[in-house]
C-alpha cells in the first residue's frame, strides 16, 4: 500500500540556489568577512597579520579540524581532541626534558599516544556501537587527567630556547611559519585521501547510509575505528606544535578546543548527520574562526566579550549555511 503511495520523488537536479549555497556558502562567508575586516582595519591585510592569523589557526583548530571532518563524515563526533592535544603537549615535554629522547622518537611516541586515545574511543564506538558523543566525552576526561598526572599540573620546559623543538614551532621556511606549512600539508593530504582513495569514498558513504554500506559487504567498523585513530593522531600533532611554539609542555592547552574545531568543520558546511563535507570548506571554516578572532583583537574587543560575539557569529554563519535549506523543506 504505502509503496504505491510514495510515488518516486523526482528531485530537481541542476544548479539551484540551494545547491550553490551549499557548495559555495562557506566561501561567500569567507569573502564577506575578509572585505569587512579590510574595511575595518588597515592592519588586517598586512603580511605580518595574515601570517599571524594563519599561525593561530595552525596551532589552534586547523590541523585537528581535518581529523574532526573525517569523524563527522561518518556521522560521529570527537569531543576529546582538546584533551589529547594537551596530553600530546605534556608528553612532548616529558619525553624531551625528562627522558631526553630526540625529536624524531619523541614525535613518534606522542603520535602513538594520540592514536591510542583515538583507538580507545573508536573501539567502543565502532564495535560496541556506543554513542560517540559519550565515549569521546569520557576520553576528554581521561586524556586531560593523564596530562595533569604526567605533568603534575606544572608546565614542563622543553629545554634551552633554540633547540630543535622550539625552533620548529616559531621558525619560518620560505617566509612562512613552519606550523602553517605543516597545516597546509595536512589539509592537502586530507583532501587527497578524502577525494581520491577508497578510504575517503567509504567513510563518506558510511555517513550517508551506514546500513547500505554494510550490506554491500564493507567492514564498516574498521573504517569507523580508523577515523577516531586519525583524529587522535592529528590532535597529538597539534599538541606537539603547541609545545614547540611555547617551549613548554602544558596540560592547560586546548581547553575547549573541541568546540572551536567542531565549529570550524560545521561552518565549513559539513553535516553533523554525516556524509557531507569537504576539506577546502573545512579549511575556510577554520580560517573564518581565526579571522573573526583576529578582527575582534584588532578592534580591541575585550576578551570576555569576544566569546559572546564569537557565539553570535557562529549562529549567523549557520543560518546562512543551512537556514535556506530548512526553509525550502
Amino acid at each position, binding site marked *: 500500500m504505502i509503496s*504505491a*503511495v510514495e510515488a*518516486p520523488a523526482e528531485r530537481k537536479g541542476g544548479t539551484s540556489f540551494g545547491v550553490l549555497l551549499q557548495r559555495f556558502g562557506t566561501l561567500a562567508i569567507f569573502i564577506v568577512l575578509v572585505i569587512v575586516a579590510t574595511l575595518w582595519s588597515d592592519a588586517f591585510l598586512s603580511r605580518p597579520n595574515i601570517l599571524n592569523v594563519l599561525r593561530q589557526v595552525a596551532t589552534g583548530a586547523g590541523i585537528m579540524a581535518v581529523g574532526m571532518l573525517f569523524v563527522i563524515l561518518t556521522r560521529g563526533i570527537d569531543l576529546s581532541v582538546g584533551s589529547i592535544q594537551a596530553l600530546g603537549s605534556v608528553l612532548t615535554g616529558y619525553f624531551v626534558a625528562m627522558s631526553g629522547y630526540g625529536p624524531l622518537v619523541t614525535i613518534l611516541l606522542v603520535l602513538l599516544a594520540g592514536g591510542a586515545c583515538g583507538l580507545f574511543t573508536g573501539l567502543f564506538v565502532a564495535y560496541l556501537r556506543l554513542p560517540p558523543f559519550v565515549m569521546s566525552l569520557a576520553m576528554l576526561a581521561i586524556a586531560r587527567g593523564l596530562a595533569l598526572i604526567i605533568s603534575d599540573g606544572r608546565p614542563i620546559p622543553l629545554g634551552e630556547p633554540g633547540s630543535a623543538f622550539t625552533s620548529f614551532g616559531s621558525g619560518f621556511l620560505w617566509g612562512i611559519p613552519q606550523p602553517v606549512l605543516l597545516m597546509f600539508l595536512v589539509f592537502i593530504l586530507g583532501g587527497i585521501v578524502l577525494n581520491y582513495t577508497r578510504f575517503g569514498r567509504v567513510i563518506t558513504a558510511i555517513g*550517508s*547510509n551506514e546500513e547500505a554500506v554494510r550490506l554491500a559487504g564493507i*567492514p564498516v567498523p574498521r573504517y569507523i575505528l580508523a577515523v577516531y585513530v586519525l583524529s587522535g593522531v592529528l590532535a597529538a600533532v597539534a599538541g606537539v606544535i603547541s609545545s614547540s611554539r611555547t617551549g613548554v609542555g602544558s596540560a592547560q592547552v586546548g581547553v575547549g578546543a573541541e568546540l572551536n574545531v567542531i565549529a570550524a568543520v560545521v561552518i565549513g558546511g559539513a553535516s553533523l548527520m554525516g556524509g557531507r563535507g569537504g576539506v577546502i570548506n573545512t579549511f575556510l571554516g577554520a580560517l573564518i574562526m581565526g579571522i573573526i578572532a583576529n578582527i575582534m583583537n584588532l578592534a580591541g574587543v575585550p576578551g570576555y566579550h569576544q566569546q559572546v560575539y564569537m557565539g553570535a557569529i557562529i549562529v549567523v554563519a549557520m543560518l546562512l549555511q543551512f537556514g535556506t535549506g530548512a526553509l525550502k523543506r
Partner: protein
Amino acid sequence: MTELARLHAITKSFGGVHALRGVDFDIRAGEVHALLGENGAGKSTLMRVLNGEFPPTSGEIVIGGKPVHLRDPHAAREHGIAVVHQELALAPDLSVAENIFLGELPGVIGWGALKARARGLIERLGFQIDPGAIVGTLAVAHQQVVEIAKALSRDVKIIVFDEPSAVLSAQDAGRLHRIIADLRGQGVGIVYISHRLEEIFKISDRMTVMKDGQNVGTVNNGDITIDELIRMMVGRPLSAMFPERGRRTIGQEVLRLDRINAGRMVQDVSLSVRAGEIVGLGGLVGSGRTEVARAIFGADRLDSGSIHINGKPVQLRTPVHAVKAGIGLVPEDRKLHGVILDKPIRVNATMARLSAVVNALGFLRQGLERKLVTELGQSLRLKASSIDAPVSSLSGGNQQKVVLAKWFHAGGDLIILDEPTRGVDVGAKTEIYALINKLAEDGKAVLVISSEHQELFGLCDRILVMGQGELKGELLPADYSEERLLALSMTGRTTAPAMGEAA
C-alpha cells in the same frame, strides 16, 4: 443485529493510484467481522478511512445511522472507534498506565487513580500487568494487551484488530480470542484482519474478502469453505510481463542450507539453489522469507544449521563474509538498505567491489570506474542524466537498477532479491524481470522473494513456500496457482481441508 457503522462506496486514491474503489463495508453490534485479502488488497487502507486517518476521496461514512465526517483519529475515537494496529503504536519508554491514557492525560496527573484505572482495564482482559511497568520491557503479547486496554480506556463501540495474531504465539493468540469473544458478548463490533484462515473460521461471524481495492464479497461463516475463500482472494489474469524463459543451463549447486535456525522466524529451513536457476521464496509477509534471506546474507546470526556455498561449508557471520563468499542481496527496503540516496550512481554501483576500481595503494581509478559504470548503465538500460547524478534523482525502477548494477559489478554467484519490484511502476517491472532473467542466464543462482505471486510464477523455475517460519513445501511450474501457494503457506497443505475440519 444493529448496524454500528457503514462505509458506503468508499474510494480512496493517492495521486492517481486507486487504493480503494467503491468499497461497501458494515459492522454490526456483537459480531466479529473478518477482513481478508492479499497484501496490498486495501484492507489496512479501508480501516484507516474508518479510523479517520485517511479522508476518503469519495463515499460516505455512516455511524449510528447518521453520515459523519471524520477529520482525524481523534474524531473517530469520539464516535467509539478504536484500532489496534499491526505495528503496535505504543511509546516504549513510557509506563503501561501512561500509554493507556496517552492523549487524554490531564494537565495535572493523579498517578494513583490513573494506575488503578489502568489495572482495572487490564484485569478486565484477564491479565496481570503492573501499570507502572515500562512498556518497552514487556513481552510482545503483553504489549498487545496494553494496546487493547488503550482501545478500551474510553467507551468503545467498534474495535479493529489489524493482524493482531501475526506476532503472537499460539497460546497468546488463544487468550486474545477469548478477549475478543468477551467483547463480542458485550455488544462491541469487531473487525478482525488476519492471514490465518483457520483462526478466522474459528472466531468470525462474517467474512469480507478484498482484492485490488475492491470488495469481492461478504459471506457468513458456515456458508463457505477455506477453498472457496482462497479462490475469492486470488485470480487475476497472468500478464505478458515476463521474459521468455531463456536457454538457461542449470549447473552445479551454488547454495545449500541444511536445517538452519535463526530466531523465531527461521525454523529448520533446508533448501538448495543451483547455478542458472531462479528459485522463488513465497508465502505471506511475516512468514519468515526475509529472515531466511538475512540469515543467508549474514545479517542475522544462525542459531544452528549449516550453509554451503559451491559445495564448501561457510560461516557467514556478517555481510562482509557473505559478499566475499559471492552472495549479493537486493534488500526489501531499497531506500534504507539498498542505495545511498544522496551519493552518485557511480559511487553506489561500485560499492560492493571497490577493489576493481582501486589501485594497490588504495587510490580510486576514477577513469576506469566511469567507464565500467557507464557500460553497466547501458547494459541495464539505466535512465539517468549522468552517472554522477545522485540516486535520489532517479525513479524507483531506475534506483532498483542501480542496486542490480551493484551486484552485476560485484559478480558473485548467488543473488538474493527481496521484493525486487516494490515501488516500481509497471513498465520498469518488465525490465527488472528481464534483468533477473539475465542474471540467471549469466549462470548465477537467483533466489527471489516476493509477495506478488504472479511475479514468482512468471520468473521462477520452482517456488519454495514458507509459513510461520517454516518451509511448508515446494511448487513446480505445473502446480503454479495462487490457491495452492496460499493454501500451502497458511495451512501447510496444497489442498485445503474441508470446512468442517477447520471450524
